[in-house]
């Protein structure tokens, strides 16, 4: 095949290999992977010109963004959505107003024109949903309150961004701005949002549960159906001039109300990780460093505003809303960067001749600086908070010191039983009779029914996320009743690494040696035990005695 036919594959090859090299190099100096990916993109694009962005790469990036927001939606039950609505409205409204005004004033002070200051004010206002969720997800804190508040804030910002983009799109440089057209577009966006939200909630209640319950025993079917649902809603959102993010998020909320949402989340996560990595590399590829020297001082000034003042505004609002100092601080830290939407907004402004290309380049540089620094801030937010708290920096805000209520799962000293066949169920029954805390796992929701008082989890033990969710390292013991050789070996391997005793189903003599080599504590051998039981029965019934 000619190189032209393989362009996408070649581009993906460059992106993945370079991202891997940068990620491994970054690991040595504890650099967050987001920064590594953007640097890899800069190497591939502005530095060596190895990859040119085309439609296919843009599509993959969009896929990543859609999946990321879909996964965020997947974690939100309706109760959580209701709770977050108030925060989104108050925090989002205040933060957007104060930050944009502040950004506008700083830009004016730096000598930019009114129109340029207006665009720069908008640029510094919005935070990157994708970058922050990726960072929080990597940190494993998506279940925490501050992560949920951050998501609510960013989605509120997204709505404002969409309104801004809609307004800007309505403005045609050659004709005058018609108020009616503008209002029509805005009405379409907000009306669409309302229609979509209602449709999604109705679907979650009446349309989706039955088909998904029917397909629940076929993981591949559920997986493809969920993806299909996500992209159909994204397309619908597009029809209403809404963003991919909002469409995917709403689609995720609908699926979150189904019992299989957790397993789906785990299955979709690897796909999202890959596509988001590609998205972040393409961000680096897009960077423009032609006027670096002239724009650098302005970039530093506005970046300082994003890194210090914006979090301060968010912190103050949250303290005022009576959230604890810890939650307010962690949320504030998460907002210290600008959004990829800002690039679109600036590009649109430039295309309408409202601002020059130098402002677009400036926005890109602010993005690079703030995303890189905020990646470190989020990664090390715990020690930073401890420092700020102990040094008295936060005292003047008089924030609430008691922790907010968090509904986090905490497992320790439990017994994990994997595979709910007859053997697995029998073991769960006997262990619960002994008052052991048991966590039963199977990929088939039907098999997990009727195991109370044991905890149950629908999922595949081969996923790292399942290992973390069941707190395998803190388990008293792990038992696998599965008849899957590879999975059993992996369980034994993981248990050996975490120093957790395990018992594995040795269903065939061929698997025994490997399991012993992996330090399996006890081998379940029903075929052998069955023969011994048979011998006992024959003796007991006097069959041999005649």
């Amino acid at each position, binding site marked *: *095949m000619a190189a032209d*036919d393989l362009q996408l*594959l070649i581009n*993906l*090859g460059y992106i*993945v*290999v370079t991202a891997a090299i940068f990620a491994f190099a970054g690991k040595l100096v504890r650099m967050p992977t987001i920064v590594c990916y953007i640097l890899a993109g800069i190497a591939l694009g502005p530095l060596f010109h190895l990859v040119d962005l085309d439609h*296919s790469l843009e*599509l993959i990036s969009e*896929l990543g963004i859609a999946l990321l927001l879909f996964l965020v939606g997947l974690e939100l039950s309706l109760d959580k959505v209701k709770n977050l609505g108030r925060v989104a409205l108050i925090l989002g409204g205040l933060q957007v107003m104060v930050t944009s005004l502040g950004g506008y004033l700083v830009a004016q002070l730096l000598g930019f024109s009114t129109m340029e200051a207006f665009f720069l004010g908008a640029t510094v206002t919005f935070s990157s949903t994708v970058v922050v969720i990726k960072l929080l997800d*990597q940190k494993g804190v998506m279940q925490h309150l501050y992560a949920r508040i951050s998501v609510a804030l960013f989605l509120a910002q997204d709505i404002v961004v969409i309104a801004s983009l809609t307004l800007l799109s309505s403005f045609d440089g050659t004709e005058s701005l018609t108020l009616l057209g503008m209002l029509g577009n805005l009405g379409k966006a907000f009306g669409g949002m309302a229609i979509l939200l209602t449709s999604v909630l109705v679907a979650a209640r009446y349309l989706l549960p039955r*088909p998904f319950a029917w*397909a629940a025993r*076929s993981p*591949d*079917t559920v*997986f*493809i*159906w969920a*993806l*299909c649902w996500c*992209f*159909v809603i*994204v*397309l619908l959102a*597009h029809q209403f001039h809404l963003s991919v993010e909002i469409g995917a998020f709403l689609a995720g909320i609908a699926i979150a109300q189904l019992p299989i949402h957790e397993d789906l989340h785990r*299955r979709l*996560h*690897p796909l999202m*990780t890959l596509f988001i*990595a590609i998205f972040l590399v393409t961000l680096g590829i897009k960077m423009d460093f032609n006027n670096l020297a002239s724009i650098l001082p302005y970039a530093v000034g506005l970046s300082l505003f994003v890194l210090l003042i914006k979090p301060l505004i968010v912190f103050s609002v949250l303290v005022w809303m009576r959230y604890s100092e810890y939650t307010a601080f962690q949320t504030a830290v998460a907002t210290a960067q600008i959004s990829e939407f800002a690039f679109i907004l600036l590009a649109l402004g430039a295309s309408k001749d409202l601002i020059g290309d130098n402002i677009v380049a400036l926005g890109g540089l602010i993005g690079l600086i703030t995303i890189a620094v905020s990646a470190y801030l989020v990664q090390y937010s715990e020690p930073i908070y401890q420092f700020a708290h102990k040094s008295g920096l936060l005292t003047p805000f008089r924030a609430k010191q008691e922790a907010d209520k968090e509904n986090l799962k905490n497992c320790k000293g439990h017994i994990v039983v994997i595979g709910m*066949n*007859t*053997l697995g169920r*029998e073991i769960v029954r006997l262990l619960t009779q*002994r008052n052991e805390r048991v966590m039963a796992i199977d990929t088939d929701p039907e098999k997990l029914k009727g195991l109370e008082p044991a905890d149950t989890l629908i999922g*595949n033990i081969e*996923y790292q996320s399942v290992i973390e969710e069941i707190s395998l390292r803190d388990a*008293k*013991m792990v038992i696998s009743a599965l008849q899957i*050789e*590879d999975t059993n*070996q*992996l369980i034994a*391997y993981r248990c050996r690494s975490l120093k957790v*005793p395990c*018992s594995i189903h040795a269903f065939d003599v061929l*698997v025994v040696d490997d399991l012993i080599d992996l330090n399996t504590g*006890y081998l*379940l*051998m*029903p*075929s052998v*035990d*069955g*023969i011994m039981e*048979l011998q006992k*029965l024959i003796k007991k019934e006097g*069959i*041999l005695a005649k």
Partner: protein
Amino acid sequence: MSGLTLLLIAAAIAFGLSKLLRLPPIPLLILSGIGLRLFAQQLNIEVSELMLGEMIEIGLTVLVFTTGADLSPRRMLGNTRGIIIVAVTQFVVLGLAGISTAIFLNYNLTTALYLGFALSASSTLVVVRHLQQRRQMFEPFGRLTLGVLLVQDILIILLMVALLSYPGGVLTVVSNLAGTISLGLIAFLIHLKFIPWFTQNLKLDDEELMLSSLGILFVFTGIAYLLKLPLLVGSFFAGFVLSAFPMNGLVRGMLGSLSSFFLALFFISIGAILTMPDRLLIGHSLIFTVVLIFVTVLLVTIVSEKVGYSTRTSIETGLLLSQTSEFSLLLAYTGIASGLITEDLFSMIACITVSTMTLTPFIAQEKVRWALMRLHPRYRKGERSCANYKDHAVLLGYGRSGPKKLKFLRNHGLDVVVIDEDASVIRRLIAQNVPCVQGGISNINLLEQANCKQARVVICSMRQSHDAHIALNYLRNYPVKVVVSTFEHSETEYVQKAGGYPVQTALASSQKFIKWFDINVVAGN
């Protein structure tokens, strides 16, 4: 985004139908792709050719990669020789049968070679999914089948290289094959030495594992590109590199998601670019399908039995392998891309693949296996008359635990008669001078032949509870004790009600475990 959504809608329909009709998803995905194209034509919706091409390109690379990652050579341990004999014989004979049929149907040599080799290997994706669904991956026939598939995948990769290099002359073929083998050897060395060290010493999180796995994929694909080999060679060897334990387990979950996604998009896209074959080609497809199924079942059964597998295992393996491979499609696709075969031929190969893959779940049914077992020649020569046996024990089904039961009963002075349907088991028992009767347990004549009514005990260890029911009913009014191995509670209850003695294997095993648990875990804490 709308093009991709259309593909996903088509895939969602195919998976729904696959679940509803209990058919493998691959043929339905291809058919759904054809439907998508027709639908788009009717409504004047444009499905981008560029996008379909790219989906096929990426899907192909990812699918071959994940297939390679799933085929660990460890699966062959214990019977490597037997597996290689079965795999190579099937590959060669089926290939020759395909080539002969194609020549008989007046195709030219290049086309005949493509057709023959497209027929020669079986589908790893279909078979692995079928075995997983039925939880038979690690049954003897599951192990044999997976071993055969690994060998066949390697052979078809080599063939693909040879066929694509064939227009360049013999030297090009030899040099490309040498390149492929060298790449394979490098992959083997990395698989053997580097990957275990890498996994042991670098504690990687999910994201790093994903990146390193895909990095390996693109490095190998890049090398294949530089060596002017098909990219799939690089993808397969990259997958093979990762098939080393425990790396294969650590990345399986992640690659599983990628594989499911690209599998759907790849086969939908293949369907969407297919042209419908004409009547003549459909007729030819039918002929090839019949040849494939007939030769595979017969050949694999004979050869597997010759290398020491039981009749049941041999027949099950033959039935399960009777479809063409996804590699057949890849072979045909690369053939089109290189201009060596026409689009019509590609459509015909796709037609054979769709029909054989669709037929697999029907062919691999229990009742087909039973029917073929009955057709198998019997070893009547050594069967004994059991009419004179009294107070003896009868084993209904020999299975893996048969030897231990036989030894135990004989050690306690009981005569034992075995009834089993498997011809090769009967042959071995005759050689050991054990009284036995060949046939299915559901046949009451056989119970009479083994003189069960006058036996002291009848031990039933067949997997099918139906057979135990027949024996229990037949012996209901006689003093003979019927002991039945049970797996589910419902079976246990039934056996008790019917006057039998259940042996609950799962309960026995879990109780034994609990004793160990009390001593070693509870007391230890």
